[in-house]
């Protein structure tokens, strides 16, 4: 059981998130080729390379800063829909860690809730529209439902829920973003952004378990 993830472990966790996203660029490209314009992989790579660069060149003083830096890097380097929504996840979600010197079970759940609300606002989307929100929202609910003070359990629950969320997007009809045009033809394909959320939470889970 892991109660807290301190600042250095958080930075390490965010680095491994970035590395995992970057390692999955082809998977994300192929997913976006099936439903969108094929740039999600390279966009996420640009964003998370910039995040690594930012964490390296300006070591964050707090956990909030670490998430904010990652969010700023994504927001300014990814571009497209993903830049705005993934930037928002980290930038807005960061507030949950304000003043805290470690990630706890509670603050991690708050991070996901904050992210969910901010993405829904920014993207003008609800659940069921086949976006990354369909991975973020169930993850946020699972984290809250998990409760307790084992942060690694909370992250694991969120990760598992996000994976299921990805599966669920396969059955959804896209009504926003570039996949919208596919109409019925979007069914059967998972949402690329949701896959990215599952990669991100999966990397966090592994990092938390290792800490």
């Amino acid at each position, binding site marked *: 059981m892991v109660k807290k993830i301190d600042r250095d472990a958080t930075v390490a966790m965010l680095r491994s998130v970035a590395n995992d996203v970057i390692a999955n660029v082809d998977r994300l490209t192929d997913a976006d080729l099936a439903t969108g314009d094929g740039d999600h992989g*390279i966009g996420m790579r640009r964003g998370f390379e910039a995040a690594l660069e930012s964490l390296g060149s300006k070591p964050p003083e707090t956990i909030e800063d670490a998430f904010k830096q990652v969010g700023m890097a994504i927001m300014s*380097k990814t571009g*497209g829909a993903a*830049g*705005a929504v993934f930037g928002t996840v980290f930038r807005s979600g960061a507030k949950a860690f304000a003043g805290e010197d470690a990630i706890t079970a509670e603050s991690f759940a708050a991070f996901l809730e904050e992210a969910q609300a901010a993405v829904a606002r920014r993207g003008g989307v609800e659940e069921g529209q086949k976006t990354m929100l369909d991975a973020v929202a169930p993850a946020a609910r699972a984290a809250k439902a998990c409760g307790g003070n084992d942060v690694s359990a909370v992250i694991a629950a969120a990760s598992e829920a996000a994976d299921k969320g990805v599966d669920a997007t396969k059955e959804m009809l896209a009504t926003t*973003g570039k996949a919208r*045009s596919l109409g019925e*033809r979007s069914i059967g394909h998972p949402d690329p952004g949701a896959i990215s959320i599952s990669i991100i939470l999966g990397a966090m889970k592994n990092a938390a378990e290792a800490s």
Partner: protein
Amino acid sequence: MSKPTKKILNDPRKAVSEMIDGLVLANDGAVVKLPDHDAIVKKEIPDGKVALLIGGGSGHEPMFHGFVGKNLGDGAACGQIFAAPSPDTIYEAAKAVDRGNGILFLYGNYAGDNMNFDIAAEMLEDDGIDVRTVRVRDDVAAAPPDRMDDRRGIAGDVLMIKIAGGAAAELDSLDEVERVTRKAGDNVRTMGVAVSAGSIPETGKLTFELADDEIEIGMGAHGEAGIARQKLQPADEITDQLIEKILSDLPFGKGDEVALLINNLGATTMMEMLVVNRRLRQVFDEHGITVHRTLVGTWLTVQEMAGFSVTLMKLDDELKHYLDMPASSVGFSNM
């Protein structure tokens, strides 16, 4: 998956930045690039001018950044290929074109562009700058007329920028520039057809697959699905299919005067587009529609995609005035 077209580039990951350097140079001194951002700004913008900022993903050259020029955009915020620019790039570009009389944002209606431009607009409003937004939503294939907000912006961009650029050069108030631009937007409709796909250099993958005898009607400007995948047909039949959908959408009808734009998505020959123009005029004659002005060329591309789109804008005297103003930029041949 079939092979994408060979391209003459250096490192594909640097393609956008090298392209922008080349574009600035192609303007022969009329524009500058912002130091730390992929944004292009006109050198001479008079004080007190209503500023016009355009932008969007790269890879559609000469759209958008090729339309910064005389009586056109004052600046353009450029994203990576098929990706909206980031809020900070848009913000800096907006600051650079601002002359104290407000800024009109004009761009295509895509989730990515909407979010990024909105974030920048919020930042600018925090600075006390008046920002208005007009989103081009001309693609009739993307959604039915009762869901205009779900429509994408495609080659209608060209006429919109032309008119907004003229209005922003002549009119003193942001309200007025916004009004004219919205009117243009309310009266423009486009639909396209793709005969082969384009690819993003960095992935090297075609964005979709079409069989040798297939075309896609209503294809979007990033390879988004259209409304029908069908066998290749004679030009007249394809033209009829596109124009019937366009005409009935606004609708356009007897006595209307229009601007007509036939846009090459990349690899289509002008010969084909002129053959299409011939058929369009026959249809217009049947419907009593007259063409005030025709544009046939390459303005909004989707990399090496082959195909074209047809754009119609219903004109009144005011729109005609701004459409007919002289303009020049790299994308308008600069002649």
